[in-house]
């Protein structure tokens, strides 16, 4: 059957509507290893969108100085976002750390509003009040980028508590890095989540470096998934460069959580090609190490699968690349043309109470 390009007005719109194929519905087989053409094309397009967004915004940060603040790129970790999206439903909640661009875009926060947020514009996904580390999209169940290492582990369990309390079968995907695995909140939360069998999947995106400190230098226990043992929590290690592996492991964990089986810890081994943040000179690792991982690049892997299986031709893939690039270019234009927040926004969104008597002098 000849490949028909997916006819979407834009990926932004498509993601917002969640019209891509889901595999995690009631008939979902979590052990399925056969993924459809649509799955691979969706993964490819999403991962390219995240990567191109990051590359473009990094350029705007470094070249134009139009993006400021602490900026943490998701490049290299895209397969996690891809596999988690197909392994969950739109009703499921995501909450993550400050390395939040990729997951926000995956969940369906519009690319325009993400870029505008980086620019600090009123049209940003947090009205220009959050910046790079604090993307939000409550309407698409993206509960934000959180800036205190590990804090969202506990808050995410709270989101899951509410789902359990209301007796839904929604689950929370709660992301954190390997650095956060050394925070006390992780242990308190694991204990409570297992005690109460909360529907939360703890996803440790282990990119091997807590800023500049390698995992080996942060603990005697270098296998982070083993931290679950102390709480008798199911745990798994996952190849984070493989969207298929992420999908399958997330699918198993999600199924368990939906069936009231409680939380899971997934240690997803990934690699960030870029520094911890944009200002990181990366003197703690070699170029060879980075290159080794780039050889396993998740986007290239999916691209190869698509070509090998004739899911699409080179030309059609190039068309996807072009479409993604256009979306990102458009988002820059949107961000640049958007207005700054009004100055009187300083005292807005601080309280829900609209009559709060702020101290002003």
């Amino acid at each position: 059957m000849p490949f028909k390009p997916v006819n979407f007005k834009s990926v932004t719109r498509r993601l917002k509507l969640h019209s891509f194929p889901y595999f995690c519905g009631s008939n979902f087989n979590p052990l399925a290893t056969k993924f459809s053409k649509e799955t691979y094309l969706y993964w490819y397009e999403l991962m390219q969108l995240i990567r191109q967004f990051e590359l473009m915004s990094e350029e705007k940060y470094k070249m134009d100085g139009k993006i400021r603040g602490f900026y943490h790129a998701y490049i290299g970790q895209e397969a996690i976002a891809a596999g988690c999206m197909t392994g969950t439903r739109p009703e499921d909640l995501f909450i993550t750390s400050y390395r939040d661009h990729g997951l926000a875009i995956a969940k369906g926060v519009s690319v325009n509003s993400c870029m505008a947020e980086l620019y600090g514009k009123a049209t940003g996904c947090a009205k220009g009040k959050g910046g790079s580390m604090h993307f939000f999209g409550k309407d698409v169940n993206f509960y934000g980028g959180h800036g205190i290492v590990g804090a969202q582990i506990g808050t995410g369990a709270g989101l899951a508590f509410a789902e359990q309390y209301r007796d839904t079968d929604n689950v929370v995907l709660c992301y954190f890095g390997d650095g956060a695995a050394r925070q006390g909140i992780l242990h308190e939360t694991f204990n409570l989540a297992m005690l109460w069998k909360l529907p939360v999947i703890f996803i440790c995106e282990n990119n091997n470096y807590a800023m500049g400190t390698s995992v080996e230098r942060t603990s005697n226990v270098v296998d982070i998934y083993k931290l679950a043992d102390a709480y008798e929590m199911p745990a798994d290690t996952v190849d984070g460069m493989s969207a298929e592996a992420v999908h399958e492991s997330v699918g198993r964990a999600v199924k368990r959580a939906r069936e009231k089986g409680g939380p899971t810890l997934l240690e997803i081994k990934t690699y960030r090609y870029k520094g911890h943040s944009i200002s990181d000179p990366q003197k703690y690792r070699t170029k060879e190490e980075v290159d080794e991982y780039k050889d396993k690049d998740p986007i290239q892997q999916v691209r190869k699968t698509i070509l090998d299986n004739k899911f699409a031709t080179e030309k059609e893939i190039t068309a996807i690349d072009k479409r993604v690039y256009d979306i990102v270019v458009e988002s820059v234009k949107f961000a640049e043309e958007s207005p700054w927040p009004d100055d009187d926004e300083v005292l807005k969104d601080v309280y829900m109470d609209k009559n709060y008597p702020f101290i002003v002098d």
Partner: protein
Amino acid sequence: MARSIAFREALREAMNEEMRRDDRVFLMGEEVAEYNGAYKVSQGMLAEFGPKRVIDTPISELGFTAVGVGAAQNGLRPIVEYMTWNFAVLALDQILNTASKMLAMSGGQVSCPIVFRGGNGSAGQLGAQHSTAFEAMYANIPGIKVVSPSNGYDAKGLLKQAIRYEEDPVMFMESEQMYGDKSEVPDEEYYIELGKADVKKQGKDVTIVSFNKMMKVALGAAAELEKENISAEVIDLRTIRPLDWQTILESVKKTNRLVIVEEQWPFASISSEITYRIQKEGFDYLDAPIRRITAADAPLHYAPNLVAAALPDVARTVKLVKEVMYQAK
């Protein structure tokens, strides 16, 4: 009809009434359920509402605070009890960095309607780590409200208001030493709006402002002063943030003198803020410097005489009032 009930019962009635009204409200904390509350505030609540809504937690302040905050962000209305606010310091990251800031950081998308409550301040010879009064520290934080009632009647109305109508995080400061205090509480349901001070005693010579259990000192001093024909007006702040400074200013316009009694440490305390506000708004009305009595600028020690020496009392308040009246001998 009014009944005389203990402070702890007033708090319990507030929670019971709101939990009967709204399924989204639940109580969590250490010993709140099977033990019936470390200070028996939640006595009988497990029996009425069951373990889904009255939830014992392990000793894990940061963890259960985080769960409460996340639950509030996702549509529930939690009440989180701390055995004492001294232990909540372990959870300050969730209160300061998540609960108070997420509405702003998310551009208004993620709110956090939650009530944190528990005993606060000194409660006898408990040593330094169980004796801190935290109103000033929390009142410094934008995005949250701080309530610190002095009696069961106010406590019930304010707590009901916080649970039902406040969409922002509320820090509700009680006192272990007041849980047994009796007050008159009507049978009828009532709410008390946050941010409104209460003039507990009318007077014309000097204004005394206080809150929480230090209101006993303020009212005690006023009674002593009355014997010497000094008429003190006594104001109970009830809510610390937002601060009802207008009520204080109106009183000072009448008395021209202001004394503040609080259990905070002195540096950047509630009295510091009141003093700034009243000198700015009421400079021309003041006939004497604004004065205050705070807790000593030190951790609270154990020995009974050291506790007494460190905390405000009636005698020192009376003496200070006489100083601002220029009657000190």
